[in-house]
């Protein structure tokens, strides 16, 4: 065994992944200064893209890495928006309200996790949906919201329209970057090793001493905070809050679509899926019912024939993971170019 261990190089960063990280840094800087040159329309659309990427990455964190398929994640989307309205109504700055609302969503999800994480598979999936429906009803009782009539984030009016647009854009960019970075670091940490072990086999992970429930809880809360932030940013750009449009299962359907098409359980796949969904929506969003039928049929098709999604197909052809979550094992002798990453050794 020792001899075997000696004959491999264990590396995490490859030249490719360093290059990719550098490119991502350049892209993020370019996006940060984009408002200087980009038109208002482009800025608005990019904000939408950031929200989609955030939603996809967070649903993927829960389902792809934690093995927790939820049909009720729109609960946190709605709560993020609702709590922003509630906090801003006390006179707090709207942007501070958004951040605080996301933190509160995290606390609520922590409390909820103590009951919900005991459920398995499909039971967890629909029980989350029931919880979302209950939250929706309870929010409707708040006199400030006036039932389905809804209300608006009026306090945003203190910012002039041009400033407001760029501030929301930056908020979206920051939220997306921060949560993706948090997820990336989490997956690379010791907890990340536990997460990947759980993803491959919950029983096996538990048998070698992984704290399954605690690890899932970390992902559950992270996903709730991210989706709560997404809801708050969506509210800021849409201004009006109608409970029905935020607490809509449509949002969860979008998340599922993005992750299924992009590639469930891969960090890059969720981002790819979100970008694709964004493009599809831009091109076919006006087709109404047929657009929705197409989305559902595509999700159905991928679940049956490409359960690993597009990134699953791309990843197989790459020598290394673009963003290293696992480790790369390469043969010590330089003549042997074969190498495999731990990322590729999945048994799902």
């Amino acid at each position: 065994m020792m001899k075997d261990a000696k004959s491999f190089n264990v590396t995490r960063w490859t030249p490719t992944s360093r290059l990719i990280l550098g490119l991502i840094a350049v892209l993020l800087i370019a996006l940060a200064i984009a408002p200087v040159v980009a038109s208002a329309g482009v800025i608005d659309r990019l904000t939408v893209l950031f929200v989609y990427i955030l939603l996809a990455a967070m649903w993927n964190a829960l389902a792809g890495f934690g093995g927790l398929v939820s049909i009720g994640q729109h609960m946190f989307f709605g709560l993020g928006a609702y709590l922003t309205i509630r906090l801003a109504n006390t006179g707090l700055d709207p942007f501070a309200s958004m951040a605080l609302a996301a933190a509160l969503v995290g606390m609520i999800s922590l409390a909820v996790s103590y009951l919900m994480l005991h459920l398995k598979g499909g039971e967890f999936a629909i029980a989350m949906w029931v919880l979302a429906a209950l939250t929706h009803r309870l929010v409707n009782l708040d006199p400030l919201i006036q039932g389905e009539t809804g209300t608006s984030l009026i306090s945003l009016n203190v910012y002039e329209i041009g400033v407001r647009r760029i501030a929301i854009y930056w908020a979206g960019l920051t939220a997306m970057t921060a949560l993706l970075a948090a997820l990336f670091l989490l997956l690379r940490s010791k907890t990340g090793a536990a997460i990947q072990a759980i993803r491959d086999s919950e029983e096996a992970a538990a048998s070698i001493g992984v704290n399954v429930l605690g690890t899932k809880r970390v992902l559950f809360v992270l996903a709730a905070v991210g989706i709560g932030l997404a809801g708050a940013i969506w509210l800021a750009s849409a201004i009006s809050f109608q409970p029905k449009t935020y607490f809509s299962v449509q949002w969860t359907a979008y998340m599922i679509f993005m992750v299924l098409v992009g590639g469930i359980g891969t960090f890059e796949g969720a981002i790819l899926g979100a970008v694709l969904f964004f493009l599809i929506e831009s091109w076919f969003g006006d087709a109404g019912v047929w657009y929705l039928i197409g989305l559902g049929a595509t999700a159905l098709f991928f679940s049956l024939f490409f359960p690993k999604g597009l990134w699953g197909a791309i990843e197989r052809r790459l020598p290394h993971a673009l963003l290293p979550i696992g480790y790369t094992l390469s043969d010590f002798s330089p003549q042997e170019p074969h190498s495999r990453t731990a990322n590729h050794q999945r048994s799902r």
Partner: protein
Amino acid sequence: MLNQLIQGILLGGYYALIAIGLSFMFSVMRVINLAHGSLLIVAAYALWFLADTYGVNPFLGLLIVLPLMAGIGWALQRFLLERSARGGSLLPILTTFGLAIVVDNLMFQRFGADTRSLAPFIGDLSWSSFELPGGLFVGKLSVLIFLTAILLVGGLQSLLKFTPLGRAIRATAQDPDTARLVGIDAARASAAAAAIALVTIGIAGAFLGMRGVFDAYAGAPQLLFAFEAAVIGGTGSLWGTLIGGIFLALAQSFGAMVHPQGFLIGGHLAFLAALFYRHFVARQLVADWLRSRARRPA
């Protein structure tokens, strides 16, 4: 008060009726079918279409619609669930959710946004009632629904217990590979189970259409009611589903008494309370019982 109790119990019969197919599929196929609600609406629309276009009484229409539903169930298992179950236990959730989106929107495309009902096609059954001693009135349709639920649960239980097909279905549910070893065609047993589940969905869909109105997107709330009834009653237990449905309906009626918008909230809270009981109280009780047995000298 007594009146509300009786109405609640009868409404519970309806919830049990719509939950039977979901519970049956879960207990014998280990699949939670997220397209369950949408399929209820498919059956209701099919009956409405027959009644509206050809003047077919919905009860007679069932003779056409139920075989169709059985066919849909068979195809659902053969072409979707069988394949998706190979990808793990989580994938069928996504597959059936995708199916629900497709089915809902196709129905919207075909039938539009108007709400429909089967009530106009069943004569006075939709509104006439029995008078009970004490001046209480119970709707004939509600009683019929309640009796249908009991008959269906009893029928399914006997089918599972006493018939060769039932034995094959139960064996496949427990362990498909071993079932295959003893000569059971597991794929056929699962497809038959799915067909049976869809027949119960067809019956439930008929009553859904008779007791109220529906539209293309009415499936999702029905799925949640069915799921709540099934979970409260103990997932996978058919008689439990009946008790779960009654408990759900009583909680909703109680919620409506407390607050005008409390109907749904009451039901959802009852569901959460049942989950809480199952995972914290009941588990503790079982653990205590086992410990006390272990301590007892032999």
